């Protein structure tokens, strides 16, 4: 689903990504780990078509970025640590806006479905401004799922969530994962990624320093794997 070859991203004289190779098969859930400043967000923004690669090739669902960005965007759902919502609109209105932007027709049934999934049905006509951080994050996930994307990108989705909200997010993520979506999630928190992912990749100093499948690791050696990747 995702194919990245020799991806380089420079901001002027600063090189953030120096030759990233990264492949994700359909149905995989990849946890992209790494310390703050390792380039995780930059990498995800490039996958999300919000930022252009300086060098290298990026293909999502067979389409090339940045040239076929519109096709990629139609197949992509993105959740960042900001909710990408409008505070002065209700949950329903926010979803309607995005349904229109994604060119969906007869979207009321789909919106109903999404609201049930994220458990915000009762609050659908309330302003997003009045929502808690956790509720906003759930709605953000609903927004990302609206158009049946093949690939979903999560950039630090747990940032700023309390324990209850995090547990709720776990439940939603698990229910999305079993539906067979391809998922990439960045995290600097190993514990969060541990239960969900089928693969762990570590991004360090602008390259993928290590990669391991779920069955190769267990709770005790995950930390050792991560630390070794950072120092290698």
């Amino acid at each position, binding site marked *: 689903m995702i194919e990245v070859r020799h991806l380089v991203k*420079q*901001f*002027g*004289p*600063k090189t953030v990504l120096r030759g990233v190779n990264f492949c994700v098969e359909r149905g995989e859930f990849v946890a992209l780990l790494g310390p703050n400043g390792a380039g995780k967000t930059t990498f995800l923004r490039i996958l999300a078509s919000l930022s252009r690669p300086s060098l290298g090739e990026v293909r999502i669902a067979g389409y090339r970025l940045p040239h076929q960005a519109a096709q990629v965007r139609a197949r992509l759902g993105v959740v960042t640590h900001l909710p990408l919502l409008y505070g002065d609109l209700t949950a329903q209105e926010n979803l309607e806006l995005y349904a229109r932007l994604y060119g969906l027709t007869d979207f009321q049934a789909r919106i109903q479905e999404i609201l049930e999934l994220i458990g915000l049905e009762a609050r659908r006509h309330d302003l997003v401004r009045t929502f808690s951080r956790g509720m906003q994050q759930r709605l953000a996930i609903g927004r990302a799922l609206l158009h049946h994307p093949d690939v979903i990108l999560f950039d630090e989705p747990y940032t700023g969530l309390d324990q209850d909200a995090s547990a709720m997010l776990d439940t939603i993520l698990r229910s999305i994962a079993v539906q067979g979506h391809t998922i990439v999630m960045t995290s600097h928190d190993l514990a969060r990624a541990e239960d969900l992912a089928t693969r762990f990749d570590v991004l360090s100093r602008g390259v993928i320093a290590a990669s391991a499948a779920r069955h190769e690791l267990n709770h005790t050696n995950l930390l050792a794997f991560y630390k070794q990747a950072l120092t290698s």
Partner: protein
Amino acid sequence: MSPRPLVLKILDVLAFLSLVVATYFALIYAPTEAVMGEVQRLFYFHVGTAWVGMLGFMFAAGFGIVYLATKNLKWDVVSVAAVEISVMFFFLAIALGSIWARPVWNTWWTWDPRLTTAAITELIFIAYFMLRAGIEDPERRARFGAVYTILGGLSVPITFLAIRLFRTIHPVVFGTAVEGQEQMAMTPDMRVAFVVAMIAFSIIFVDLFWHRIRIGQLHARVEQLKLKTMS
């Protein structure tokens, strides 16, 4: 950084000589203008600097477009160089015009289209540098800078026309004067001095432009080395 290429060294000498020659033609060779007197001699420098300022402004917008098309930061260095030189020459043109206007129009400043447009152009440049100062990422700084020079390049000629809707007393150097304007009559000798001044300032412009681009390249190199030593 490579040392100064030979062509640039020759150009440096040429630029200095052409300034001397232009000064000679303007102050000694050209006859004294009958109505305005000696102060009219400023005119040669005034038009020369204004012409070069305008050239720089057009270069800036042109290289801005090239940058947006190629996304190669070297064109941003060139575009900034053009803007900076243009700012300086426009300032000189306004100052010289002002000194000339004092005895001739009996005022330091009038809200004439040319003067006002020049002043507004300077304001656009100031806004341009403030915009760049507010952006950390060099790539975004270059993109936004290029977009702004293009907008400026398009709006300045319309500004000139818009101000002309109101009034003008600036003498017409080229073309025919419309009603209420004075035509500047040039003798052949004056015309020679005028052409010499235009050529001289063009050479000076190219010389400074080249130097400024080299400084910009050095600056980019310093940034790069700074990052390397930090990491």
